[in-house]
């Protein structure tokens, strides 16, 4: 123990310091790297620009969703309603737009407003009624899906106009010598930067982390904990609405569009080292976790595994990765 200084002890060799530095890197980056190399090995085409961008476009919804989920997770909560928000976004956008290209912009506004509303309700119920978020967002899972299904009568109706679908499936043609630069990737980059700034470079993010760590101490230090917590839920639900627009654009209207995404996003975030029950988490690492999951799906596909078995492998990987993280943190303590 010394006075705080910036210097590291010079006695350590360069190799030891490099090893130490490598060990401080979040393991999710290694996992993603290994998976990416494996995919490239099985399918060299993967690393030509167009297929790779297409892959990123496919991964974009889960990555954005996961980044949103991180905000709720570091605040100490869960958001189980995101899958339903995605489904309802897809269903309702089809009904509202009903193949009318002129409607696109107000439909998008409406969907984002819907996301804000769901987030506000999740946040308010959790913050003011003190309902555990696992339960409040579970309730909202049922409510939001019910609203979507009630509106559509239980089956997909209507069509999405092309200018609404474009976010999910098309891109800017012929720039950088590419066939297409997907809009989804642009959105992905925009949100990655935005969320990174928000959580890691703004007072808001630091207050959110402190709140997830110790709500009482945060309140006594002047953090407006209700506002900060509710806005985390809003960020998460809005992210889900955006993911819904991308998924609808890519895959078309389906009442299964968002099934399982709540758990996938939590698992991806945890894979990225986010601590459940709050206080620790990183946007880039969590998004890498989501990327790793999507690469994994691609890999399993390439290996010709039957589709259902992907779930099983996904389950194994998640448990393995979290067990490894738990093991290594125990060891370093």
């Amino acid at each position, binding site marked *: 123990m010394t006075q705080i200084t910036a210097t590291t002890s010079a006695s350590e060799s360069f190799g030891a310091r490099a090893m130490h530095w490598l060990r401080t890197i979040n393991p999710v980056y290694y996992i993603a790297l290994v998976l990416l190399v494996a995919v490239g090995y099985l399918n060299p085409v993967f690393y030509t620009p167009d297929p790779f961008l297409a892959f990123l476009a496919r991964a974009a919804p889960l990555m954005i969703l996961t980044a949103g989920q991180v905000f709720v997770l570091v605040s100490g909560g869960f958001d189980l309603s995101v899958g339903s928000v995605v489904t309802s976004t897809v269903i309702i956008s089809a009904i509202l737009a009903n193949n009318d290209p002129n409607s696109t912009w107000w439909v998008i506004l409406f969907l984002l407003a819907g996301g804000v509303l769901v987030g506000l309700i999740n946040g308010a119920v959790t913050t003011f009624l003190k309902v555990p978020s696992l339960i409040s967002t579970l309730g909202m899972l049922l409510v939001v899906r019910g609203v979507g299904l*009630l509106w559509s009568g239980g089956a997909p109706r209507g069509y999405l106009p092309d200018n609404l679908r474009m976010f999910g499936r098309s891109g800017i043609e012929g720039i950088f010598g590419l066939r297409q630069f997907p809009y989804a990737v642009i959105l992905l980059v925009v949100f990655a930067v935005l969320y990174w700034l928000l959580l890691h470079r703004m007072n808001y993010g630091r207050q959110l982390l402190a709140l997830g760590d110790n709500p009482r101490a945060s309140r006594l230090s002047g953090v407006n904990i209700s506002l900060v917590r509710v806005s985390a839920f809003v960020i998460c639900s809005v992210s889900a609405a955006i993911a819904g627009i991308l998924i609808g654009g890519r895959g078309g209207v389906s009442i299964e569009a968002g099934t399982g995404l709540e758990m996938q996003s939590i698992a991806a975030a945890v894979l990225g080292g986010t601590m459940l029950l709050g206080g620790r988490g990183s946007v880039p690492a969590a998004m890498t976790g989501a990327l790793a999951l999507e690469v994994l799906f691609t890999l399993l596909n390439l290996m010709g595994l039957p589709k259902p078995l992907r779930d099983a492998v996904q389950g*194994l990987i*998640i448990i393995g990765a979290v*067990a490894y993280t738990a093991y290594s943190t125990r060891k370093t303590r």
Partner: protein
Amino acid sequence: MTALTPSAASPSVIDRARAWARARNIPPVYGILVIIFFVSILADLFFGIDNQLFIFNPTILTNILVRSVALGIVAVGQTFVVLGASIDLSVAYMISVTAVGASYLMAGDPNRVWWTVIVLFVVGAVVGLVNGTIITKLKVNPLIATLGVGLILKGLLNASFANFAGSVPISFQAFAYNAIGPLPISVLVLFAVVIAGWFLLRRTRYGAHLYAVGGSEETARLSGLHTDRILTIAHVICSMTAVLTGLFVVSRLRSGAPWVGTDGLYDLESIAATVIGGTALSGGKGGVWGTLAGVLIFSLLDTMFNQIGIDAYMKQILRGAVIILAVGFYTFRSKAEQG
């Protein structure tokens, strides 16, 4: 909500009832159940689509109990793990595995019933053991561990079966459809499970130790308890109740499909019923009777919605709202009491 109940006429009665319940540490879920019961009667009276009130119809009354069986049995198991400050998200998949496994293995042959049931309970115990081991030995967060195990079960099941597979023999359907006297067998089984759960939790050392593990793992460990073993047993119990629920579901449906468990939302609803029943998600506090009351709330609401002819999707919305409000009702209140 209270204003709608007949007893609201004399507020002192309510106040006294509340004081009485508080003094005995009785969770408010029973109050909510009573309130919803009276609300149901009023709703039925004013908006009912047939001319008969459900409380005078023994079939419907029994039906409320039958509706509670599937969720009730697995919710008892969920209560065990939640009391141990854990959670089990794999139960829905376990129910699917059981339902499909039962109809596939029995294949309509009454002679295969017994060993099929035994095999399935063994499978359930193994899954519980795996859940518990991953949580206690590998120190994986229970939410992630059981989600992962659930995904593995789902993957294996969907890879092997795409649709309804086989069927259960008529004799096995007695579980869901026969009755002893006025009470269906399934309801008796539910009560047997609840009573067994109550006895285990409140009268045995195992129960006392599970409360200790959930209340404070550290304290339990320092008292020399084998905390890992205790929590793992809770997971085994939980998975086995999921098997029992799966058996009930398949006996009612006659054949099992891979989606029966997940479509029933048994994972999330069993957690909701447990929490509404007054068991704290942080563990160490609560019990199975409260959980049963929570499940009855769901069944009662379903019955009321049917009686007044509410659309299936609207039902989902209301169900979600009730989960939030019911838990909010007393979390908010208990915070207010603390000052």
